[in-house]
C-alpha cells in the first residue's frame, strides 16, 4: 500500500471525501483512482495551506484582474446560429431538439 494510507486522520482529504466531491462533479472513479487521487490531492491541499501564512484581513478578493467592471449590451436579437447547425454536434437529436434520457419517471 502507498504512503497515503499512513496517518489517515491527518489527511486534508479522505478517500470518502474524494468520492463525495467526484459525485458532486458527476464523475465515477474506480478504487485505484480514488486512492491515488486522495493521496495526490491531499499533497496539493497541504501545499495550498501556505496561503494561511498570508494576512488577508480587509483585503478585497479579486475575480477580474483588469479595470473593466461590466459590459452591457442592448437586449436585441442579433444574427445567430441556424438551428440545424447548432444541433449538428449533438450525440442524439430529434425534430430539432436535443434528446436526453428520461428525466421524470
Amino acid at each position, binding site marked *: 500500500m502507498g504512503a497515503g494510507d499512513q496517518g489517515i486522520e491527518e489527511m486534508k482529504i479522505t478517500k470518502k471525501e474524494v468520492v463525495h466531491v467526484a459525485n458532486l462533479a*458527476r464523475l465515477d472513479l474506480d478504487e485505484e483512482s480514488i486512492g491515488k487521487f486522495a493521496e495526490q490531492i491531499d499533497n496539493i491541499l497541504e501545499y495550498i495551506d*501556505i496561503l494561511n501564512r498570508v494576512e488577508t484581513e480587509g483585503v478585497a478578493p479579486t475575480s477580474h484582474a483588469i479595470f473593466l467592471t461590466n459590459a452591457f449590451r442592448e437586449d436585441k436579437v442579433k444574427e445567430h446560429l441556424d438551428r440545424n447547425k447548432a444541433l449538428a454536434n449533438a450525440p442524439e437529436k430529434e425534430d430539432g431538439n436535443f434528446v436526453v434520457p428520461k428525466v421524470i419517471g
Partner: protein
Amino acid sequence: MNLYELTIHEAHNLLKSREISSQELTKSVLDRVESVEPRVGAYITVAGETAMAQAELADKAIAGGNITHLTGIPLAIKDLICTKDLRTTCASKILENFVPPYDAFVIKKLKKAGAVIVGKVNMDEFAMGSSTEHSGIKLTNNPWDLAYIPGGSSGGSAAAVAADMCIGSLGSDTGGSIRQPASHCGVVGMKPTYGRVSRFGLVAFASSLDQIGPLTKDVTDCAVLMNAISGYDAGDSTSVPMDVPDYTTFLKEGLKGVKIGIPKEYNALPGLDAEVSEAVKNAVKTIEGLGAECVEVSLPHTEYAVAAYYVIAPSEASSNLARYDGVKYGLRDKGKNDLIEMYRSTRSMGFGSEVKRRIIIGTYCLSAGYYDAYYRKASQVRTLIIEDFKRAFKSCDVLLSPVAPTPAFKTGERAEDPLKMYLSDIFTLSANLAGIPGMSVPCGFSTQGLPIGLQIMGNHFNEEKMIKVAYNFEQATDFHNKKPKL
C-alpha cells in the same frame, strides 16, 4: 533554403515581390509536416486540402494587389481555438469528434487577413498541464531532443514552430502555457494582457486567466501576429475597448532610458537550475549593455502564487467543464437510460486523469464549508500579488526572469507527481493572476543542448515595451537562428 524555414516577415517579403507563391510555401510546409510528424507528433489534424485551397485564394488576392502581412502565410492553431468546419478536440476524448459551427474571433481575423490554416496542434487536454503529456490524443516530442517533453500546454504549437512544421502559430496561456513551451522549444511566445485578445471561440479552461497569443520563430513575427489578433470584440465581455498600437513600429526603438526590474525573490526560489540562472543573468547583462538600466524590485507574495493559482484555476475549470454532459456536443455513453448515470459515465469515459484531478480539486475548493478557506482566501492573495506588480512597475518598465526553473524534462519523468509539475509554473503563473502580459525569448542552451528562455513581463497593455526589449536582445544574440536537427 527550404521555404518552410522562413519566418512570417521573410515569407511576406517573398510573396509580396512574387518570388514565391503561397501555394509553393504551403506545399513546402505540408511536405515538411509529412516528413517530421512521425517523430515530433505536433499535429492532431492536418488540413491539407483546405490549406491548399486557402493558399490558392491568397495567391489570387496577391495577384490582385491585396496583400496583408499574413496573406498566404501557413499557420498552426492550438486545438482549443474553434475553427469553423475543422475538428477542434481540446486534445480530449470528450470532444474528439467536435466540429465547431463557427470561427473564434481570432480565426475570423486571421482568415480575413488571408492567412492559411495548416491544421490543429496538440496540447494538454483542455490546456491543463505543463508537458503536453496529458493530451488525450497523442504524445508530442521536443524537436531538440525527442526524448524530452516540448512543454505545455501549447506543446504542439511550440514544437510545430521549432520544427518548421508551420510558419507561425497561435496558442493559449492560462498559467504559462504559451511561454513555457516556447522556452522549452527555443521559440518566441507571448501571453498578451488579459482582455487584449478576444477569447470568443477559445474553449474555456479558467476564464479569468485564459488568453490567446502567438508562438513564432522571432520577435518581429510576434509583433506581426499580435497586430493581427489584438483588439476589441463585443463577443467577449472581458475584451477591452482600447486602441491597439502597431507593434512592429516599436522594433526600431533602442533601449536607452528603459528600466529593467529584477525581482529579488526569484533568485531565492527553490529548484532553479544553475544553467537557467546563468543564461538569464547573461541575458540581463546583454540588455544592460544595450543601454537599459537595471533596478532591483520586490514581489513579496511570489511564494504564494502557485498555491493561489492552483485554487483559482481548478475552481474555474470545475465550473467551466460542467458543460460536457453528453447532451449538446461531444461524447455520450449511449448505453445509459438514466440521465445522471449518463452524465457520470460520459464524463468518466471522456476526461483524462489530470482533468478529473483538477475538477475534483476545484469542486472541493468551491464546496460548502470550504469556499472561504480556499477560493476566497486565494482571491485575496491574488489581490496582493496584483499590488506587488503595481508597486514594481512604478520603478521599472519591464521585469526580467526565467520562464521555467529548468530546461525541458524527460517524457514520463513527472507524470506521477502533479505537485512537482505545478511548482514548475512558479515564474509564469503570476502574470495570469495579475492579468499582465509576459513573453518568452530564447536566451541560451543547456549543456545537453536544450533551449532556455528569458521571460519579459510588462504592465497592463505594455506589450510594446516587452517587444522592444525582446527585439533588441534578439538582434544582439543569435539563439533564434539555431535550429533543431531532425
